[in-house]
């Protein structure tokens, strides 16, 4: 029962903090672009709003699939919270969850039958191709710490100092991964405004609510993993400050860069990945 409570608490924290960070991000972006911007809790309110709105399903959708896939996205990120903050399990498992998330995201787009969703789906496949090399981060972390289990990585950092200083390029690669998940980022080709809202175009009511909840949790989880893996054991304040700092940083980047063409977005990420991989290996050989 205690475990259940911990899980619920963690999921709730993840959801609330994720939404507020998103709101903050939009605010900062707006201010950089000399706009007033929405209030910080806008994203949270937005999410809650969708649960009281009427749900409707497009006539063209692939039926049980269309509903199940949006609910699945939520389930996947809840299990990510269980693997991450609650159980501190294997990092590999976390990346398995991330892979599932990519799939769900891409099929939420294609299952509605909307041409915008379809384009978003094709782009999601493109971008997955770019994010896969970033899994190399995992290998680099493993080579450095000899373990994949998050709790062991934390204790390794407690003994040897944060990994950020020993494998900085891996941290940069992971940051690119986080950046690609942020809305309005140069790599957010799946949700670019040229294809309306991408995979979310045809989701209304509860389904959209599910999608937004899982986006918030995903953002929280990615930041959590980044902070845990590269900064070592942190207190509550540490996590809070770190997450704020990262959100502000991504907001600055997103506000000042244009969205890239899909092919270029991928190749930029792949180039980052290759530089990161070879650079990290060289650094590790050097020290």
């Amino acid at each position: 029962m205690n475990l259940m409570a911990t899980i619920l608490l963690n999921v709730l924290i993840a959801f609330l903090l994720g939404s507020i960070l998103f709101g903050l991000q939009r605010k900062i972006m707006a201010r950089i672009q000399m706009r007033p911007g929405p209030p910080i809790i806008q994203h949270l309110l937005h999410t809650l709003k969708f649960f009281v709105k009427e749900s409707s399903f497009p006539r063209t959708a692939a039926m049980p699939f269309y509903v199940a896939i949006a609910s699945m996205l939520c389930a996947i990120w809840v299990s990510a919270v269980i693997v991450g903050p609650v159980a501190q399990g294997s990092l590999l498992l976390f990346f398995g969850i991330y892979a599932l998330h990519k799939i769900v995201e891409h099929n939420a787009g294609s299952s509605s039958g909307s041409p915008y969703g379809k384009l978003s789906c094709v782009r999601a496949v493109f971008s997955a191709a770019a994010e896969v090399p970033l899994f190399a981060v995992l290998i680099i972390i493993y080579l450095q710490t000899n373990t994949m289990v998050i709790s062991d990585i934390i204790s390794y950092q407690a003994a040897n100092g944060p990994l950020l200083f020993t494998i900085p390029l891996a941290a940069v690669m992971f940051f690119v991964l986080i950046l690609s998940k942020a809305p309005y980022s140069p790599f957010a080709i799946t949700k670019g405004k040229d294809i309306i809202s991408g995979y979310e175009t045809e989701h209304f009511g509860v389904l959209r609510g599910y999608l937004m909840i899982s986006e918030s949790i995903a953002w929280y989880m990615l930041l959590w993993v980044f902070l845990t893996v590269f900064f070592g054991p942190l207190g509550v304040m540490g996590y809070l400050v770190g997450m704020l700092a990262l959100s502000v940083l991504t907001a600055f980047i997103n506000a000042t860069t244009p969205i890239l063409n899909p092919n270029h977005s991928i190749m930029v990420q792949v180039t980052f990945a290759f530089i990161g991989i070879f650079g990290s290996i060289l650094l590790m050989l050097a020290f």
Partner: protein
Amino acid sequence: MSIGRLWNQLANPKRIPRLFSVVLGLILLVGFLVPMGLNDHQIYPRPAPQEQIDQKNPLAPYDRGGSPLTEPGIVKAQYPQNAEELGMITGYLSPIAIGVKNTTLYYGTSIYSSPGGLIDEILYYTRGFDTILESTILMMAFVLASWVALNFTMRRKEE
């Protein structure tokens, strides 16, 4: 902006197999720089080539000892504890195979390719799961080919 154009070219499906094969070819060349050698402690070792046929063994080159239904042959499997009847299949000869064995010296391959024999032992018993997959791959490839053939390439006049 030549790098942008280059990146766009990489998205052309026709170029991908070519690109892949160049990269793979270069990696194969790396193989010449790597010191390699065969580890002689292998599972399922076999006698030197032509050794059994030179001894005029009618079961050459697949004789691994044992006698049908009574005594298991010699099989060096990875996990012998997982296969209770290990070696029995190698030792088994069907009645026809026994007939062939007594008639001629040079049909060992046929004898051991008929039910029984070492390859059957590996393919069906110790590594049977592999064979399931292989026959599934075969089946899927044929389902695919015959479906395309039936619906598109053979009934072309009807369309």
